[in-house]
């Protein structure tokens, strides 16, 4: 993975920059020594490592603003970081850039039941929000698998999903407002406790911008009342085609379950060996369907889905009788990544989305690719919304295997795009999928995105080297193409 050429002059100024930051921040908030910088060298995508220039750990919005203003003035790059759980290298440090850790901003500022929202600092974990309101019967809906560790600020940066977004939406659909520090140190508020921020939806575009547009310091999220009942169905199929048909038939019947997850045979076996969830081992695909609502509604839907599954050729069907049993159904799915980690020295987790109906075709292509690259693959799949997580098994200690795994992964993602899907459903582009962007976007598409970046950060100091395959200067991007030999209406005022 090629990163922008680090600036040797900035690296040479490490000591001076650390001293400047110590002047801005309270004691103990700046890390410049090699062993402690190394702690920050990677995020959840451990294949790439780079110790940062310096680590700054501000404790409040004013300190974040002061650091950004300093970087802006001095022309120093900066990489924001929450808990470092990104699976796409979104928080991968730069040799000539400051890593800005937001972990100290860890307080919940306001729990407002009258307006059904919570205001939290960026470093509060996703799960801590639910924990803070569950006593009153509320929860925060988006639930990425890393929710015990990942921060709400990072969720906003990545527009994180989870297993329940089919019914309850992604982060972007559940955030009402943010406080954000712009690259020049300016602090602005977007949205609040009301719906639909007025003016351009800068909140919407900031969500999922992977730390390239601003640093989120505070987030207002909406909270929902807990459903009365939750039940899960575990349905086994002799083929993934039949499982796919079942998913389509459930939706065609007008049912939107709270969650609908699929696992293929290798994933089922790895998960069962790890957590002993009681998964059937003689099926090719396993579907977990979660339903929530009043008991009468769930019982009615369970009956309907059971009938649909039978029509689609289901081999087994179990319905959770207790909450413990429901959690057991989920235990295997939720532990799928570590379970695969047990059967292979390393694995590489992919994240494409496809139109659901193309699943069998994409799985067949994956089987062929698996043979071609001589690497095994296990699949977990947010079946309801078409988000695939192929886990490619490899051994980094065997020469060439990492490279083969990456090529295999790239081919899978290109197949996703080819059938009408996208490169990343919830993990982000980061550095990982950066160079594949042209498979989905033309130069003109990317130029429009990069110009938006320029509107926020003309010096391109915030998290550079991520998302976009090539860095282009803002002045060059801003140039108008001359139409018909002359600048159109030259007398119009220009900003």
């Amino acid at each position, binding site marked *: 993975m090629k990163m922008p050429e680090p600036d040797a002059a900035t690296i040479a100024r490490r000591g001076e920059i650390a001293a400047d930051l110590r002047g801005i921040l309270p004691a103990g908030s700046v890390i410049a020594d090699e062993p402690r910088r190394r702690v920050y060298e990677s995020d959840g995508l451990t294949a790439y490592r780079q110790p940062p220039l310096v680590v700054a750990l501000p404790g409040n919005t004013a300190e974040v603003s002061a650091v950004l203003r300093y970087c802006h003035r001095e022309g120093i790059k900066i990489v924001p970081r929450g808990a470092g759980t990104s699976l796409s290298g979104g928080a991968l440090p730069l040799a000539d850039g400051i890593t800005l850790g937001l972990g100290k901003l860890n307080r919940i500022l306001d729990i*407002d039941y*009258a*307006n059904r929202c919570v205001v939290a600092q960026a470093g509060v974990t996703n799960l801590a929000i639910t924990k803070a309101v569950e006593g009153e019967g509320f929860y925060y809906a988006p639930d990425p698998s890393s929710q015990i560790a990942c921060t709400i600020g990072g969720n906003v940066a990545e527009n994180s999903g989870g297993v329940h*977004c089919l019914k309850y939406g*992604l982060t972007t*659909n559940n955030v009402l407002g943010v406080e954000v520090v712009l690259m020049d140190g*300016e602090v*602005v508020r977007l949205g609040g*406790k*009301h*719906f639909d921020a*007025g*003016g351009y*939806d*800068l909140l*919407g*575009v900031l*969500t*999922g911008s992977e730390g390239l547009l601003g640093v989120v310091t505070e987030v207002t999220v909406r909270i929902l*009342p*807990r459903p009365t009942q939750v039940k899960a169905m575990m349905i086994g199929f002799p083929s993934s085609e039949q499982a796919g048909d079942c998913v389509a038939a459930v*939706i*065609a019947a*007008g049912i939107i379950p709270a969650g609908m997850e699929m696992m293929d045979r290798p994933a089922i076996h790895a998960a069962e060996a790890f957590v002993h969830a009681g998964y059937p081992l003689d099926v090719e695909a396993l579907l977990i369907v979660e339903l929530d*609502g*009043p008991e009468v*509604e769930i019982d*009615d839907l369970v009956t309907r889905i059971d009938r649909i599954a039978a029509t689609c050729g289901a081999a087994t069907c179990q319905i959770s009788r207790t909450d413990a049993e429901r959690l057991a159904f989920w235990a295997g799915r939720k532990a799928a990544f570590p379970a695969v980690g047990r059967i292979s020295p390393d694995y590489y987790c992919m994240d494409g*989305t*496809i*139109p*659901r*109906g193309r699943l069998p075709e994409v799985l067949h292509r994956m089987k062929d690719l698996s043979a071609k690259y001589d690497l095994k693959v296990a699949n977990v799949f947010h079946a309801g*919304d*078409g988000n695939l997580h192929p886990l490619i098994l490899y051994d980094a200690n065997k020469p060439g295997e990492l490279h083969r795994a990456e090529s295999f992964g790239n081919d899978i993602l290109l197949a996703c795009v080819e059938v009408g*899907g*996208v*490169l*990343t*459903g919830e993990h*982000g*582009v980061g550095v990982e*999928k950066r160079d594949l*962007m042209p498979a*989905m976007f*033309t130069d003109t*598409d990317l*130029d*429009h995105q990069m*110009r*938006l970046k320029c*509107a926020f950060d003309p010096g391109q100091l915030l998290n550079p080297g991520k*998302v976009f395959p090539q860095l282009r200067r803002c002045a060059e991007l801003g140039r108008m*193409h001359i139409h*018909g030999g002359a600048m*159109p209406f030259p007398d*119009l*005022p*220009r*900003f």
Partner: protein
Amino acid sequence: MAVLQPTDMAGLAEAIASARDSLEIVGHGSKRRLGRPVQAAATLSTAGLTGISLYEPAELVLGAGAGTPLAEIEAALAAQGQQLAFEPPDYGALLGATGPQTLGGVIACNLSGPRRIQAGAARDHLLGFRAVSGRGEIFKSGGRVVKNVTGYDLSKLMAGSYGTLAVLAEATVKVLPRPETACTVMVHGVDAVAAIEVMRSALASPHDVSGAAWLPGRIGNFGSDAFVALRLEGTEPSVAFRAAALRESLKATNVASGEASTTLWKFVRDAAAFAGDHDRIVWRMSVPPAAAAAVAGLPDAEYFLDWSGGLVWLAVPATQAAESAKLLRHLTARHGGHATLVRAPDDVRASLDVFEPLPPALATLSQRVKHSFDPRGILNPGRMYREF
């Protein structure tokens, strides 16, 4: 005035690239009176960019030309038992406009109805689009799948930008099953303050309320008593169970179903209470729900509440336009939220801030965003803000 009406994407791009002066962007003009009046040399209509190009019910996705009449899309969805869950309103009668509204118009203005509280706004349902920016260049963003974080989410930026950044040519939206049944639980004889508490309590319950409104007595044909309306949607057994539970816990006075329920929510959705009376100007305020009573108590104002109090509709005498603007913006500054002048004569909308004025740092940033898409400032100049 010249009207350009391209019939394909290339024609749209050519129309914008070769424009010698500013353009007012319209579909069929149903929302021309929304926003500040645009002074432009020519009109660019998307009415020729029509047709549903993609509809896969099992994938919950539909794509169509921006100029496709919304009615055509809703009919196609209804035939498959589906709908646009954000419940796009029809402000035709409110604004005194004729002409069908288009998919592109509803998205460009980010309009959504009572189900906003449960299903999200238009911006939450736009999966992807193709558009032509003020540079005259065709670009796309997003895709046809719900789970997608590939690149910036420009769909959010397009929704609610009133055609000032780019002209939508095609939009791909998420569609959802139409609920099997619906009913409305009503609590009569409550003033706005009590209503906010009733709605809060209903939305804190697990009964999945998909509409929460308060209407004062004597508007529409709903009797002389003020009342709270709470909509429940879903399968037959579920709706019956939840209606009984809410009726019990809120001491409800009535449950409406079928046509009566549908008519009520259409009335709320379209702000039909204020259609016709053109001696009054109409404000639409998005506020924290608990602040609704505080912001709505304006002298001489008629008002009703939607979104569980989060949306306040106010009608005030046209003679008090400037005073109401000052007062309401004072209230949004204090309680949060924003106020939009939805209906007023052209001269009033030209002289007042139709949209909530932005703080200086956000105004500068928004202006830079506008400039990045439309450096010549030719698309709907002045439609949202006087300065850009």
